[in-house]
């Protein structure tokens, strides 16, 4: 059977077999039909759902908007959501929510009544995967941004940098930053980035946080962040541009120094903002706030003129420390860098102590300007650890209890009074204490330890300015530790995912072989059933064919997952033998099946092009590229496939007239699990493995692979360039020339 005989195919059976949930409703929004996948996705049995209003599968908060939208659609025939997929939460029978992708279409029944078909696709796994990838990427971007933020000395520059980073590295659709003006108590808009130039509404440039009715006013007043995913149906965000630009989430963050509101950051995205991502952006906001505060202080000091030199020195110190911290993503290393970065410029010696879960202190890093004495610091902490109850109370505990820095000058007689015994006194004198500042270290709003800066008796003692600097250093250190911890947990999540994928895909192989085997047996046994040609026989044949397609898909997916686990490990196994690329490409196109084959325009050399390649692996690459080109092109759009021979190399090219690739994505799309924003935004299926695997194969074969595109919507070309190494040349194998027997 080469085409579907519409009079014979039972579309009801087909609907039931679909993996996506399908719900049909009438124009009164009553459910008329639900397929089997609805129960798998949401737990509702078809008979429970039929007769109910369509909105029962929606969270209650979206129902009013849904009903209004549906009513408008019934009346006017114009629906905002018709024809384009949208991500929404759906409500399962047990009240929990699922991430789904909703597609709506209108059909007419045989009597001409209008019906609305909803197709719901489960996105929960995709969302989970996107989450861990996004977090890791954003953390890296945060780290890179830290150094940039801290070298901006002017509040406007800080906010411009923040805006650039969020638009470029965090995929923000629209960023706006506002700064507090202490004189007037107003918030003034400083930057607007992303699609702001396309947004029609002209925002006010000053708002009064005391009376502003929207979320921003609330955030300014409460100094607490606001995050909202799924703006559809929220009256606060019911603005034309939100719908037109496909804005899905909003995040509004207060930029705080301690309790002081320095400004506000507003972040709109076309994708959901996961909690972890919001946390990372919050983190970047905190970095920006610290930089804003710096800029403010530096400006103040500058204004005082007399402080200009000191301001510069302080700024240089902070910038140096920041640069050190920004480069580290390992918590232990981060702490060590903190200690090393401040000695000797700011302290003669420095100790970082962290609170253990039991409340005792653990010295995690120490540095002395005289490197030989660093071991004496460790000895001091080991033999005379700061005790919770000591009299007088140890400066570390004073600082932790007060939640504020402790700053004091220490004389030799103070040391004598505090030393427990003669050895203790000798150690303290050897290290040298003239003045010190102990600052509590806070990470994620919680005291996690303290950092002690000490100057020897021969050096100018710490002054009030130094306390400000020390506090700033501690704040940065806390943020850096946070950053490192977040990064580590994201890394662990990724490792866990990779291990899970490796195990899961391997374990899936055996049951899949069993399923495939039985399917083949079934197919053989029913190959020529007695009832062939009858409706029953054809339906059985259709089911078996569908089953086979499902198994094929599953098998490809499992093989892709196995492949992706081998990426970069060199474990991708190759079987090199002479391969004719021309025949291979022709076969791959033949395998596409009659419908898709017709869309491929082939341009192949008349003679074979032979190299020492791996036929199965190369087929995988060729199939992947042609498959992608067909997938991302308009329906019935043609795809050009060619093989051309150069003197040393062979090029295989696939060009399409599809959705294209933005210039900054031409490399990114080759990363595992990464998909170009226009591919995911337009909801093309796929998990972003094919190109990563293909490039790995091509590179292992000694070739190169890249993409070219004039931009989004302007088609793309994928090029594979392979060497025809002489080992693969069959004429070389029987050559008797010396030097050919390699």
């Amino acid at each position, binding site marked *: 059977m080469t085409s579907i005989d519409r009079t014979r195919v039972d579309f009801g059976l087909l609907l039931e077999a679909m993996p996506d949930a399908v719900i049909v409703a009438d124009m009164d929004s009553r459910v008329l039909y639900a397929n089997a996948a609805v129960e798998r996705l949401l737990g509702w049995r078809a008979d429970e759902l039929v007769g109910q209003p369509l909105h029962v599968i929606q969270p209650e908060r979206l129902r009013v908007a849904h009903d209004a939208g549906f009513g408008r659609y019934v009346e006017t025939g114009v629906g905002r959501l018709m024809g384009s997929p949208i991500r929404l939460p759906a409500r399962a029978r047990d009240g929990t929510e699922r991430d789904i992708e909703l597609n709506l279409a209108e059909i007419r029944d045989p009597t001409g009544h209008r019906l609305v078909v909803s197709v719901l696709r489960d996105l929960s796994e995709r969302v989970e995967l996107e989450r861990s990838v996004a977090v890791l990427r954003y953390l890296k971007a945060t780290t890179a941004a830290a150094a940039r933020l801290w070298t901006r000395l002017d509040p406007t520059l800080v906010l411009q940098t923040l805006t650039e980073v969020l638009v470029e590295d965090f995929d923000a659709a629209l960023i706006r930053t506002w700064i507090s003006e202490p004189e007037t108590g107003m918030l003034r808009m400083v930057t607007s980035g992303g699609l702001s130039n396309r947004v029609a509404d002209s925002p006010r440039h000053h708002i009064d946080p005391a009376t502003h009715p929207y979320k921003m006013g609330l955030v300014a007043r409460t100094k607490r962040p606001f995050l909202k995913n799924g703006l559809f149906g929220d009256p606060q965000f019911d603005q034309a541009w939100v719908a037109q630009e496909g804005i899905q989430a909003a995040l509004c963050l207060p930029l705080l120094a301690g309790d002081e509101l320095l400004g506000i950051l507003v972040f709109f995205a076309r994708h959901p903002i996961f909690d972890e991502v919001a946390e990372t952006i919050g983190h970047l906001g905190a970095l920006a706030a610290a930089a804003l505060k710096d800029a403010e202080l530096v400006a103040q000091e500058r204004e005082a003129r007399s402080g200009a030199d000191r301001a510069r020195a302080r700024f240089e110190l902070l910038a140096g420390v920041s640069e050190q911290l920004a480069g580290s993503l390992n918590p232990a290393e981060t702490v060590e860098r903190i200690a090393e970065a401040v000695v000797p410029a700011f302290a003669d010696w420095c100790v970082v102590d962290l609170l253990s879960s039991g409340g005792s202190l653990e010295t995690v890093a120490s540095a002395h300007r005289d490197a030989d004495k660093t071991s004496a610091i460790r000895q001091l902490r080991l033999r005379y650890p700061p005790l919770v109850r000591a009299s007088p109370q140890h400066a570390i505990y004073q600082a932790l209890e007060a939640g504020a820095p402790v700053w004091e000058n220490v004389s030799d007689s103070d040391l004598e009074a505090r030393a427990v015994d003669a050895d203790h006194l000798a150690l303290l004198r050897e290290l040298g204490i003239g003045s010190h500042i102990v600052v509590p270290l806070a990470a994620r709003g919680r005291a996690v330890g303290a950092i002690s800066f000490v100057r020897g008796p021969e050096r100018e003692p710490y002054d009030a300015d130094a306390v400000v600097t020390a506090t700033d250093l501690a704040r940065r250190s806390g943020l850096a530790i946070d950053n490192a911890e977040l990064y580590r947990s994201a890394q662990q999540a990724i490792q866990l995912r990779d291990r899970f994928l490796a195990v899961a895909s391997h374990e899936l192989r055996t049951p899949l072989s069993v399923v495939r085997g039985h399917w083949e047996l079934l197919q053989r046994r029913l190959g020529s059933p007695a009832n062939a040609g009858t409706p029953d026989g054809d339906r059985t044949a259709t089911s078996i064919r569908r089953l086979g397609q499902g198994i094929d898909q599953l*098998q490809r997916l499992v093989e892709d997952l196995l492949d992706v686990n081998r990426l970069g490990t060199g474990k991708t*196994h190759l079987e090199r033998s002479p391969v004719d690329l021309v025949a291979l490409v022709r076969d791959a196109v033949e395998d596409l099946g009659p419908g898709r084959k017709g869309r491929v325009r082939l341009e192949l050399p008349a003679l074979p092009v032979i190299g020492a390649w791996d036929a199965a692996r190369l087929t995988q690459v060729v199939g992947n590229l042609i498959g992608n080109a067909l997938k991302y092109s308009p329906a019935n759009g043609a795809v050009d496939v060619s093989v051309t021979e150069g003197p040393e190399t062979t090029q295989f090219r696939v060009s399409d007239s599809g959705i294209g690739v933005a210039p900054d994505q031409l490399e990114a799309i080759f990363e595992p699990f990464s998909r170009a924003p226009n591919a995911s935004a337009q909801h093309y299926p796929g998990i972003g493995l094919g190109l990563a695997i293909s490039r790995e194969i091509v590179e292992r074969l000694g070739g190169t692979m890249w993409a070219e595109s004039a931009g989004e919507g302007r088609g793309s070309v994928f090029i594979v360039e392979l060497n025809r190494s002489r080992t693969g040349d069959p004429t070389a194998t029987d050559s008797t020339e010396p030097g050919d027997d390699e």
Partner: protein
Amino acid sequence: MILVVDDEPALVEIISSLLEDEGHAVVGAADGLAALDLLRDGLRPCLTILDLMMPRMNGWELRDEMLADPDLAAIPVAVVSALALGEMRQLQVAAVITKPFRLEQILQLADLHCSRS
């Protein structure tokens, strides 16, 4: 008689069903040791279909035992494994089929080496 050696009972069942459907007699064994016992007891299959990674006695070990025994050395063996070809050292076998395989491949082998009853 065809001997199928695989530690995955579901795969033994599939291969057996296929071959029996096509008129071949089949005996299954769950590992190399079970297969060797059958062979030592006088079983002379026209073809042995052998998995490599199995508990107790794996496919390589069984192959070594067979090659060392003049009575068994000549029995045709086809290896079916998830391993890549390069990972199979000198097995001296009639055919190698990599998993996942198609049943057609098994059937062709059986028709090559055995006559249907």
